[in-house]
């Protein structure tokens, strides 16, 4: 297990290096000097300060040296400085990260619960009305853009029914109440964005779960389980689900990046103060250090999550563990 962890971490290093190099190439590809845009945006007009920036970013040096310097700084988790927030980029990212993580985890929880449940029911009741209904819903949510779904959910549940707030992460009034009240308040705000983001993945999981479950339920050991006198649902849950979950786990890792991307859009719909809102703000204001920082940072997160998923797989599938 530790050996695998070390191997996977080592494999991750060239990947991260690759992402950094790609990042660097993007900076080089920018039309005009990237410093010009940046200084214009942050209203730096003092030539001395501009020169200072030029040296900080090593613009006066040969390209390969700039690249090495860039890699070295990212290796120290130094993604540069954001003049817009007047903070180091890493700090800016870290400040937005918790909100995004909360949203992503809530969405994935919804996706897993709904998706797996729907997939299992559809597989067990295959070719019935239930199967057709669930498969139809899955196809529908698989095609609905999350931002649009978010708006429609808002129209229904926030505007028409008034059950939940339209946006934000916390009520302005609820500042000095207890921890529990704050948590409930956040959950109240979280419901719609998490649904908007989660339903798409629920659809994905439901489709995969249904197909896998159908396959698993036709395997020999399911017959053995039934021959033991176990009830239908016990067979499905204890024997079928345990095997059918494996592809879902893989999918979870593969899709972590797209969930992160999806949260950008959903966050802007609901004014959720996370990485997505930060990214959009930085893109609109051409705040390159933050944009590139988010790109590298999120790539690293995806790599780490995938390593974690590999380790989880190791625990779940004894056949892999043997190797």
């Amino acid at each position, binding site marked *: 297990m530790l050996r695998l962890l070390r191997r996977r971490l080592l494999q991750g290093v*060239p*990947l991260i290096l*690759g*992402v950094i190099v*790609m990042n660097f190439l*993007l*900076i080089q*590809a*920018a*039309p005009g000097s*990237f410093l010009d845009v940046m200084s214009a945006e942050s209203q730096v007009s003092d030539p001395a300060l501009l020169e200072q920036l030029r040296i900080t970013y090593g613009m006066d040096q040969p390209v390969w040296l700039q690249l090495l310097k860039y890699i070295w700084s990212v290796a120290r988790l130094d993604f540069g400085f954001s003049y817009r927030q007047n903070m180091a980029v890493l700090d800016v990212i870290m400040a937005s990260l918790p909100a995004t993580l909360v949203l992503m985890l809530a969405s994935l929880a919804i996706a897993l619960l709904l998706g797996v449940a729907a997939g299992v029911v559809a597989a067990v009741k295959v070719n019935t009305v239930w199967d057709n209904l669930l498969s139809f819903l899955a*196809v*529908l949510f*698989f*095609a*609905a*853009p999350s*931002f*649009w*779904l978010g*708006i*429609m959910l*808002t*129209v229904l549940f926030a*505007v028409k029914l008034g059950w939940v707030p339209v946006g934000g992460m916390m009520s302005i009034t609820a500042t000095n109440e207890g921890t529990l009240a704050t948590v409930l308040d956040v959950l109240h705000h979280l419901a719609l964005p998490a649904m908007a983001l989660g339903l798409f993945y629920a659809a994905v999981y439901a*489709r*995969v779960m249904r*197909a*896998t479950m159908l396959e698993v339920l036709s395997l020999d050991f399911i017959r053995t389980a039934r021959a033991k006198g176990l009830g239908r649902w016990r067979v499905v849950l204890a024997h079928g689900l345990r095997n059918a979950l494996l592809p879902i786990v893989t999918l979870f890792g*593969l899709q972590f*990046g*797209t969930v*992160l*991307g*999806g949260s*950008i*859009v959903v966050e*802007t*719909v609901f004014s959720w103060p996370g990485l997505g809102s930060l*990214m*959009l703000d*930085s*893109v*609109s204001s*051409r705040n*390159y250090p933050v*944009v*590139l920082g*988010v*790109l590298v940072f*999120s*790539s690293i997160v*995806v*790599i780490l999550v*995938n390593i974690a998923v590999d380790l989880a797989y190791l625990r779940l599938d004894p056949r892999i563990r043997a190797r």
Partner: protein
Amino acid sequence: MAGGTPGLFRRFARNRAALLGLVILLVVVGLALAAPTLYPRNPLRIVGPAELWPLQDPRFPLGTDSIGRNIAAIIAHGARATLLIGIFASLTATLIGVTIGAAAGWFGGWVDELLMRLTEMFQVVPGLVFVLTIVSILGGTVENITIAVGVVSWTGIARLTRAEFLTLRDREFVQACRAMGMPDWRIVLAEVLPNALPPVIVLSSLAVASAILFESAVSFLGLGDPQVASWGRLVGEGRTLIRSSWYISAVPGVAIMLMVLALNLIGDGLNDALNPKLRNR
């Protein structure tokens, strides 16, 4: 694509949902083609009262938006942009993916190793974050969005092509071509590639759907080309008016959903028709 062999189309048509998808796609294509005739003037000009609900005025069957533009015209012209970006992004992805996958599978060894690391690299970069980065640095033109979406969508195609090439590389007919002294590039282009393509076509058709979702997200965020009528942009513009006129967001969203739905259904149908063995991808 489906007309290649009659048997193929029959197998495709047996899937009712796929047929429905094809019908929806044809309607959208027809709409895109007819847009210049139906609405010859710029769809983004103001033509009537603002916030007119659908079915109120026969001139504006889908209503008007916040500043009095004809939603039906935007939908029709938006279909062009959506289709073009979707198709060209998918073509870009297919071109990159097939090239890289074919090279990796055919040459093997360190080439394979290198190209697969490259593929992994693109897999870990969150697609939308990458697209937004490109848009922010290079600008949100239709071309940039198309290429950026293509660049984030090719990894699955590359992996699949590589897998196909790996199995085809050692087949008898390829060995026979080698024995006959056929040059590598001819074997690849004339013998291996045509056999590797069917499953790839399925992924390419699904890539059109995901490209449309990418594009609509970029436009929704207001980072697309403001001169081009776009479904995603209209959803975004309608957002501020959800209390009074939520239909402005709803209508183009339904269009996006139907389009993506149609492409997914077609992809599933192609999958069943082209490679019965290859499911659940």
